[in-house]
């Protein structure tokens, strides 16, 4: 018997109440929002419940919404996959811009280790309880978080850049 989305939604709502909200079906994946303080519990429930059985963490990554209000500037998106019924689920948790902190899920999935390091590397989101939260792709000396949308993508160290050749001047003369 296939796992219905209504079953997933009911189970989550019964257990977590207001901490899980905004259920919607985006394409073919059930998507919902989780309060920042209960991500770990929700994930544990999805993983260990006998009917849900979301045994695989497909992905975990960050998003920056610069136009949102302060409390919802950053999001961490989790994708999980139930291999038994072949059902996927996606949930987001929104974080505060000044203090983007969320509990680690490395205690549930070891693969979250590098995914959380990558998210920290590019967004500066702190995963509390992570065993080794340091940069993984960029160099350690870097002070900025390059995937935040406040960050200039171009290298400012170039000396051969002339705005005229890039169509950036008003007159182009």
């Amino acid at each position, binding site marked *: 018997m296939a796992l219905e989305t209504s079953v997933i939604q009911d189970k989550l709502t019964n257990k977590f109440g207001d901490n899980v909200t905004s259920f919607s079906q985006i394409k073919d994946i059930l998507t919902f929002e989780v309060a920042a303080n209960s991500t770990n519990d929700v994930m544990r429930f999805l993983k260990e419940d006998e009917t849900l059985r979301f045994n695989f963490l497909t992905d975990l990554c960050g998003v920056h919404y610069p136009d949102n209000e302060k409390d919802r500037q950053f999001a961490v998106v989790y994708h999980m996959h139930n291999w038994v019924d072949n059902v996927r689920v996606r949930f987001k948790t929104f974080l505060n811009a000044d203090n983007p902190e969320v509990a680690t899920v490395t205690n549930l999935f070891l693969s979250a280790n590098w995914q959380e390091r990558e998210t920290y590397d590019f967004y500066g989101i702190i995963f509390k309880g992570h065993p080794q939260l340091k940069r993984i792709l*960029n160099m350690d000396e870097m002070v900025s978080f390059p995937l935040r949308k406040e960050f200039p993508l*171009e290298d400012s*160290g170039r000396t051969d850049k002339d705005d005229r050749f890039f169509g950036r001047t008003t007159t182009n003369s």
Partner: protein
Amino acid sequence: MSNTPDIKVSNTPEGVEGNGFFATKLDSVVGLARANSLWPLPFATSCCGIEFMATMGSHYDVARFGSERMSFSPRQADMLLVMGTIAKKMAPILRQVYEQMSEPRWVIAVGACASSGGVFDTYSVLQGIDKVIPVDVYVPGCPPRPEQILDGIMELQELVKSESVRRRSSPEYQELLASYNIS
């Protein structure tokens, strides 16, 4: 036996020739020897490295230029060929490899990435290896064809041939290295 030899012979340097002797400058003899035995140290990180593999192959045959032995170690290597994108995270490693080579050493930056960062005008990419080590020859192209790499090597040979033996102890050269904080 045909009259056209298959072996390319280097020309004798300028000098005084007489009966049973030949006198010339030490610079030219040493330069001749160095130029025709440039042992490469390929530092290949991307597509340019693949082009260099083709250059090493039998068709283009970089061995013709005395570069038969690829040294994947700084030992005995004269010519550092940097081929591909050098990320800022890779820069200290590249520098270390350069510092581990002994004098005389030359550097060729192969392709747009090594020369200037190329299309990767980003926070993570070094905008040209000459930011961290001195470069003798730049090979343009993205990626350059093997002919262009050979051209770069021949260009370097010209440079090596005409270089003074004492160039590397000259104040200008010391100053150049000092500007990169290499002692």
